[in-house]
């Protein structure tokens, strides 16, 4: 077959067919690709009165689910760096001699580094994830140990792909901090509580078989149900699903780093001048230093001007919980809780609403919260003069980050503001061409750095409003030049032709690829 190169709307040249991924639908714009066909549905199942779902071990669950070579299995990453479950399941699968599995993870963390051995031994031959860091990422970027591309999807894109049947999950393993004998579960109670369980809500609905793995079997019926027993085949009780110290600790505090605070303060000035901060506005901010710190200044402004927002969304932190409890927002929409303060709030406060990743960000359903946002604050590893954002690879080409919900919320929000320092170590953040396009520039409105503020020329009305409000703006080209006077122009790392990862846009088109480093 002759492989042609095509240029997508993000100006990236990619092959029209990628071995190990398949045919490429090129990215054509944030809402250009519409869905067709019907949603996927798993086989019907039935339950007999009195039948038990409780199994004695993970091994028994693997056997009962009849996991075979070549199947697709899924996991969530709500336990973050404290996750024990993925490794336990994969070790059992490896012991049973099963090979060639395709993993569908909401993200992979440093807790999952034992996967490297399973990849080397052929147990795992496919990875779908939102993020990849540490040793696995290095091994894939430098040595292509998987032998075929990883598929990166956004949080909304993953939910979409599962619902569309592009990702058919044979067996979903769901770590559950609270679960009853029938598999009703939630993520907010128990010693391993992590809060909202937005990612596996989708897996449970569409996977052929679903196994709940819990360290906290509670009396039936569980009083608060995030994923219902109607979707669960088996329940396995183990001693511990994760290390509480690494799951969610305390409350995510606002940074004290003066540079991050400076950027946040400038971003807050931009937000207030933009006119978007008014009664009933909706808001989301990433949990990173500067983006979370925007909340500190925003709160002062809301207090002084007696403004109350409608909802704050996303990954929820203690800062957002304070917003809710102190009456600055009517509600929180939570797909993933970042700290135990958020998990506790979800349990006690009915206005702290749990949502699935599909309700959060899937572009191909009948309504997601990302599309209801007025203001979104994002961070970035790199941003280019077309306002494209990279949050996945470093300037050396090595995978070290995630897509997360950034492309989803940037597309949905009325105002998308990127907060970033102009340089990290000696590497400039503003470049003429990002290493990998993750969030397309046409969905990004403003860049706020410690050295200046730039507005995407695609938003001339914003330029006018901010200028009238006395905010000094720079063109992104002049900011780049200013930074390069200090850092010099870094040499671009040359990469090989081998594709080690495909970056899907939220609608399933391909926005970029990641190539193996030389």
């Amino acid at each position, binding site marked *: 077959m002759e492989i042609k190169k095509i240029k997508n709307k993000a100006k990236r040249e990619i092959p029209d067919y990628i071995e190990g991924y398949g045919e490429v639908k090129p990215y054509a714009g944030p809402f250009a690709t519409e869905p067709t066909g019907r949603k996927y549905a798993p086989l019907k199942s039935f339950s007999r009165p009195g039948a038990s779902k409780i199994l004695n071990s993970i091994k028994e669950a693997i056997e009962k689910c009849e996991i075979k070579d070549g199947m697709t299995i899924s996991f969530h990453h709500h336990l973050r760096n404290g996750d024990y479950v993925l490794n336990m399941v994969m070790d059992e699968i490896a012991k049973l001699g099963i090979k060639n599995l395709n993993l569908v993870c909401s993200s992979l963390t440093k807790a999952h580094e034992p996967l490297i051995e399973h990849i080397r031994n052929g147990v795992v031959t496919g990875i779908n994830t939102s993020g990849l860091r540490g040793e696995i990422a290095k091994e894939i970027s430098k040595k292509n140990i998987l032998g075929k591309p990883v598929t990166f999807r956004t949080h909304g894109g993953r939910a979409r792909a599962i619902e569309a049947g592009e990702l058919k999950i044979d067996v979903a393993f769901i770590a559950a901090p609270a679960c009853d004998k029938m598999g009703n579960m939630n993520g907010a109670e128990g010693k391993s509580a992590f809060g909202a369980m937005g990612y596996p809500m989708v897996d449970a609905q569409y996977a052929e078989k679903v196994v709940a793995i819990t360290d906290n079997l509670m009396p039936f019926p569980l009083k608060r149900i995030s994923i219902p027993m109607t979707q669960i085949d088996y329940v396995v009780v183990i001693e511990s699903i994760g290390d509480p110290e690494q799951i969610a600790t305390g409350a995510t505090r606002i940074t004290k780093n*003066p*540079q991050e605070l400076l950027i946040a303060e400038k971003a807050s000035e931009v937000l207030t001048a933009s006119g978007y901060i008014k009664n009933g506005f909706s808001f989301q901010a990433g949990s990173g230093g500067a983006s979370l710190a925007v909340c500190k200044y925003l709160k002062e402004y809301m207090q002084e001007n007696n403004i109350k927002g409608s909802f704050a969304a996303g990954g929820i932190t203690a800062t957002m919980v304070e917003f809710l409890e102190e009456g600055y927002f009517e509600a929180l929409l939570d797909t993933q809780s970042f700290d135990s303060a958020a998990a506790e709030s979800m349990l006690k406060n009915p206005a702290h609403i749990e949502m699935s990743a599909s309700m959060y960000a899937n572009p191909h359903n009948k309504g997601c919260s990302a599309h209801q946002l007025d203001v979104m604050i994002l961070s970035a590893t790199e941003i280019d003069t077309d306002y494209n954002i990279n949050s996945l690879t470093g300037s050396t080409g090595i995978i070290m980050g995630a897509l997360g919900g950034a492309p989803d919320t940037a597309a949905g929000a009325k105002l998308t503001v990127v907060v970033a320092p102009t340089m990290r170590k000696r590497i400039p953040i503003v470049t003429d061409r990002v290493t990998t396009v993750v969030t397309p520039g046409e969905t990004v409105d403003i860049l706020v750095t410690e050295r200046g503020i730039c507005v995407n020329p695609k938003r001339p009305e914003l330029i006018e409003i901010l200028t009238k409000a006395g905010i000094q703006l720079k063109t992104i080209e002049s900011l780049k030049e200013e930074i390069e*006077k*200090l850092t010099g122009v870094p040499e671009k790392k040359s990469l090989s032709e081998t594709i080690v990862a495909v970056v899907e846009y939220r609608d399933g088109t391909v926005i970029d690829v990641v190539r193996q480093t030389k």
Partner: protein
Amino acid sequence: MEKRARRTMLFAPANNPKMLVTAHLYGADCVLFDLEDAVKYADKDAARDLLAEALKTIDYGDTEIFARINPLSTEFGKDDVRILVPSGLRKMRLAMCEKPEHVKELDELLTEVEKEYGIENGACKIQCSLETPLAVMNAVSIAVASPRVISISFGAEDFTRTMGAERTKEGKELFVARTMVVMAAAIAGIDAIDTVWADLDDEEGFKEEVKSSMNLGFAGKSCVHPSQIKIVHKIFTPNKEELEKSLEIVRAAEAANISKGGVITVNGKMVDIPVIAKAEKIVRLAKSAGMIK
């Protein structure tokens, strides 16, 4: 004499490359790159070279840049001047300045370096740091020791140590010294800059001290952390009413051309030179606060 707002003077160690490229971004009126206490002995040369390169290459915009040089009595002090002035440094803080002779010694060295490098005579300015009882007692003679002296600053840590006094948040033990420093600055017609507040967790205490320093007559405050800058600026921002009155006085004074003396009437009130000077200060602070252009 150049008159500009010096509400905040942010300390930044000169051996920290990141601070050399970012310190001026926090909005302080002045940044003071420290070659003295913040830099350990083994790093003195490297810090000086780093600062020299920074002065040559970085555009610090409107921020007034100072360097706290090592005392001339040390092996580093004179080289600090000889290397940094040709690199662009024009304002330096003389640490542990106790008597007018210290100022004169630096003044002579600066004259020599200016001549050698073809820099306008008198272009380099000095800020004297008064940190001991002797320095405070000599404040007036130090402040008038050279036309290069543009401000004097008060350093409370060494002062209380030398006095055997206990540093308290209320600062009663510093009241007399602070007043004397402000008086000396007023006599010389220069700025007085107050000492640092180190307890970053006590924001309320910091605010109280800044208010009290401002009321005593200090032109500004030394800051050890960027988070202090906005707080100081807010306190030093005049209220609208005060500003309107001051603008009226300044305009009337300009129209009457009475800079050399005399009295005018504004809104039925007698206005003389000290009142005009105060009004000018308020207008200057309002400009710095962005209230007027």
